[in-house]
């Protein structure tokens, strides 16, 4: 497989557009990979962060009454088994949570804001959220327990679906790339059929002839993938700038973590190997039709 005899013309044997087609395919596959892997990591982070916590809102509009209810709720929470910690969010923290939605400086002292209690759950048996809500209602009637799990479960299902769609897109892009490479290889074979026939008649093995094609196509695949990856990197850069302008709060984190970005570096290798092996397979199949 490694021995190579040069008998093909030095100019391209695959058409000028093939590297660009592969670049587009790698760009699309990379984008789909980014979305799928990014969502997977986000879902994991959310799940780890929220499954071990819940939030209690005290929505009494009267500040004095609200403070009394918060104190009573905290006392109830502290004596509830399965709760590791409970603390009221400061007003600055609550304002910071609202500002992305209402705009900076728009959350004034006259705006009735509920008090929020952040509750950390201890490891062990899960807390009975319904019973906790009933207990809190006795000491703080305006308290509402938000266990996150309901909306988190729906969100996780949605994310999994998007992940699957991303995976299907990567698969389809891969199949389309294989089909395009097969067409390009056949076109190259047709153009250089006379050359291939002569070398074949001189006793070159099929693997030797296929080898001459496969190394050319390997380089085409790598070159196309690098172009596609560069375009994707540029796109990521643009998203990064936009993300910074949005102060990274209104939308979820648009940029995936570095380890996901690093995984994209596998694309040129995969594209090169896919291109090389597809070309080899196509040439071997075509040669099998010769005597």
């Amino acid at each position: 497989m490694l021995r190579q005899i040069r008998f093909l013309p030095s100019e391209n044997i695959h058409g000028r557009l093939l590297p660009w087609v592969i670049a587009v395919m790698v760009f699309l596959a990379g984008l789909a990979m980014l979305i799928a892997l990014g969502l997977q990591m986000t879902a994991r982070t959310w799940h780890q962060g929220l499954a071990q916590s819940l939030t209690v809102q005290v929505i009494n509009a009267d500040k004095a009454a609200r403070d009394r209810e918060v104190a009573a709720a905290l006392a109830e929470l502290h004596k509830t088994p399965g709760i590791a910690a409970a603390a009221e969010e400061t007003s600055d923290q609550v304002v910071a949570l609202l500002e992305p939605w209402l705009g900076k400086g728009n959350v004034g002292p006259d705006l009735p804001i509920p008090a929020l209690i952040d509750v950390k759950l201890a490891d062990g048996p899960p807390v009975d959220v319904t019973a906790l809500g009933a207990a809190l209602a006795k000491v703080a009637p305006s308290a509402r327990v938000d266990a996150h799990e309901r909306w988190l479960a729906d969100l996780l299902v949605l994310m999994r679906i998007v992940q699957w769609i991303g995976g299907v897109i990567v698969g389809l892009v891969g199949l389309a790339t294989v089909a395009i490479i097969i067409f390009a290889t056949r076109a190259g074979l047709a153009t250089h059929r006379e050359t291939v026939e002569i070398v074949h008649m001189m006793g070159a093995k099929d693997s030797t002839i296929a080898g001459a094609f496969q190394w050319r196509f390997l380089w085409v695949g790598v070159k196309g993938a690098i172009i596609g990856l560069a375009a994707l990197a540029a796109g990521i850069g643009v998203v990064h700038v936009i993300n910074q302008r949005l102060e990274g709060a209104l939308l979820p984190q648009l940029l995936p973590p570095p380890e996901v970005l690093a995984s994209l570096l596998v694309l040129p290798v995969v594209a090169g190997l896919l291109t090389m092996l597809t070309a080899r397979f196509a040439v071997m199949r075509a040669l099998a039709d010769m005597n």
Partner: protein
Amino acid sequence: MIRFDNVGMRYGSGDEVLRDVSFELLRGSFHFLTGRSGAGKSSLLKLMYLSERPSRGLISMMGVDIVTAKRKALPRLRRNIGVVFQDYRLLDHLSAYDNVALPLRIGGATRAEVRDYVEELLVWVGLKDRMKSLPSTLSGGEKQRVAIARAVINRPTVLLADEPTGNVDDEMAARLLRLFIELNRLGTTTVIATHDMGLVDSIEVPRLHLEAGKLVQLPPGIDPPNDLPNALRLPEAFPQAVGLARD
């Protein structure tokens, strides 16, 4: 060495271009293949250089049954068959040197072996100054000499030539014929298809004559030429190239 038994051949669903062809060429024999245009000479050569398979009958080349042979067995046989095509079939994007070197490279020769043998043979066929030239810049005669050098560079067991002297002057024709004869003396079974009756009459060797796809004159067996003028000798190193493509 080469045996045909009741061989018929047709292209697609057309009429047979070869019919009931039977003959046996012994190892080291030398034959001319004659016949009018369309008589089936090229088709017979194609069967012998394994470009086509027969529609019927049996063919044995170097002890291998071609009809039943597995595909992967054929490259080894082909490396032992040198072919000079009527239209040369040189690779236009390769220099004369690289065209001649191709069979050696396919056979696994080292770079040094390729350099030594190719340069020596190209000098011998009078193309010392055209080694780096592309076929498109060569004359018909020069192309023919490159094609012949390519066919004989690894001293094949069987040499098949289709009108090999059609585009060269008498002196070069005699020189090339001498090359074929020397190869034949070294054991190469040689078949030369030609219209050139001057060439056919120049040496007494058996003829395979085709008329409308049928063989009408059978070879008598080994009858190597041995009374020829000692014109030009082959390069000293040339016999050493033997066996490069044997595996």
